């Protein structure tokens, strides 16, 4: 995948290497995404999928390499990036309501010390409505189900009104109804021209959901259109050492064929 001379990639990772202490987690990842789509980052547990996203977003330091968005450094384009961290990364007992959390998505448009006003509230309410949670807007977030919590996070990202969205395991521990709603919203974002990058661990659904995928196992194994990338050879290379998953790979292959 090489970007054309006159065409800037939406996201371009060049030779990205990340290490925690002395332990390398990601090696020499070269990845560029050029067009709006649903993009899956797939790989086994501990493969560095989340780390890849965190590295792209500047949350973990790079040991080497570089990241550019729209041909620019991250700091110049933060306003165009939406982020949904893993659900377990926050304390759901925190004393805020669903609408409070979604309002946080509008904060970057407000200056220091300015409080969200009418316009921000309307935006936040609209985003909650899009994920089907307008009726629990004022509920403390700990009182929501896992799927609802994940949708609140998604609504907050929607309120960011970004061009690129990164979601870290948005389907983990989420009921079928929430999954469907989330997928529907994400597809809507893509159809309106946004790039949606999703860290995902479930091979079975990956073939159905994503337009393009990257297979990651500490290195980039393969990247491109889903049907091409999820080949038996690539999957075996990604999941070698994860023999217990071979069954799952078999099933994923079948699902992949069905969609084709």
């Amino acid at each position, binding site marked *: 995948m090489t970007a054309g001379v006159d065409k800037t990639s939406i996201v371009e990772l060049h030779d990205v290497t990340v290490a925690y202490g002395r332990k390398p987690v990601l090696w020499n990842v070269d990845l560029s995404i050029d067009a709006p789509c649903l993009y899956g980052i797939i790989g086994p547990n501990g493969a560095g999928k989340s780390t890849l996203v*965190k590295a792209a*977003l*500047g*949350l973990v330091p790079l040991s080497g390499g570089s990241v550019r968005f729209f041909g620019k450094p991250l*700091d110049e384009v*933060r*306003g165009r*990036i939406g*982020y949904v*961290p893993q659900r377990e*990364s*926050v*304390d759901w007992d*925190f*004393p*805020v*309501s669903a609408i*409070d*959390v979604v309002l*946080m998505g509008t*904060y*970057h448009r*407000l200056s*220091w*010390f*300015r*409080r*969200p006003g009418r316009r921000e509230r309307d935006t936040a309410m609209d985003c909650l409505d899009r994920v089907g949670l307008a009726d629990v807007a004022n*509920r*403390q977030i*700990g*009182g929501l*189900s896992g799927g609802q919590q994940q949708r609140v996070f998604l609504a*907050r990202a929607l309120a*960011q009104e970004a061009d690129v969205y990164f979601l870290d395991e948005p389907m983990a521990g989420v009921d079928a109804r929430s999954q469907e709603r989330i997928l529907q919203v994400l597809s809507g974002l893509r159809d309106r021209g946004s790039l949606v990058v999703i860290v995902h661990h479930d091979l079975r659904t990956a073939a159905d959901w994503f337009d393009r995928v990257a297979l990651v196992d500490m290195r980039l194994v393969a990247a491109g259109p889903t049907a091409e990338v999820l080949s038996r050879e690539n999957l075996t290379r990604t999941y070698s050492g994860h023999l217990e998953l071979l069954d799952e790979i078999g099933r994923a292959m079948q699902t992949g064929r069905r969609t084709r």
Partner: protein
Amino acid sequence: MTAQDRLESLLSHNTLVVAGGVAAVGVAAAVVGCFGVLRRRALVGDAAAHATLPGIAAAFALTGRRELWVLLAGAAVSAIASLGALSLIRRHTRTRDDAATAIVLGVSYGAGIAAISGLVARGVAGSAGLEAFLLGSTAALTLHDSLLVAAISAVVVAVVLAGLKEATLVAFDPAFAAVAGWPVGWIDAVLVALTASMVVAALPTAGAVLVTAMVVIPPAAARQWTDRVPTMLGIAGFVGLVSSLAGVAASALVPRLATGPAVVLASAAVFLASLGARFLRTSWRPPGVSES
């Protein structure tokens, strides 16, 4: 004491002056403490508090003066130094958060006690009064001292209220805040500095050992009453106000009762009552409106 003596002692000019300063401190410590509790870093304030002692001893030894502002300036310097040490240990060694906090707390407290008892043992005039900073003693606060701690409290509350949006965002989801471009490290540092300021300002009230209770217990009590951050700050401030006033009153009435323990016991009573109230409210909720 007769009843009239007690009333006079409560309403004496000195007690009222002290009460004003202590009330301001109680409110501000509780308000800024909310973010320590929400960020799950409640013990950082405790480390800073114990680390004030070497600074107090050093300020006295170097200047030979006992005015409150001199001693509190020393306290602030050593509290900040200890927080710096804490952050260095966390970042550059493999010591975990809780162990690093315990190390800094223990070492700095040990150094403080050694320094103060050294001064007392050598018979340095006035050094015995330094021991009041261990458990808190409001008896010697002057009007000037009261104004000083009240002014610190007012500034701290003003900054917290101004930055409520930013502080809440960073306390809830620092990773999201960082990606959106907020300087998470700096916002955290300001919150820690505000906490340290209140710990220092509250030293005359509660003392180095117990001051953390003024920062932690009122927020914990307030959390039982509300699911909103702004309301939590308000209730915590109120609990801080009530319990510090109760503590000062108790120590004015009971001979030789240090202020610190009295304040802690008062806020602990409010905390227990809040827990009980929450338990009653949640167990009386009708089955149809369960939260999940």
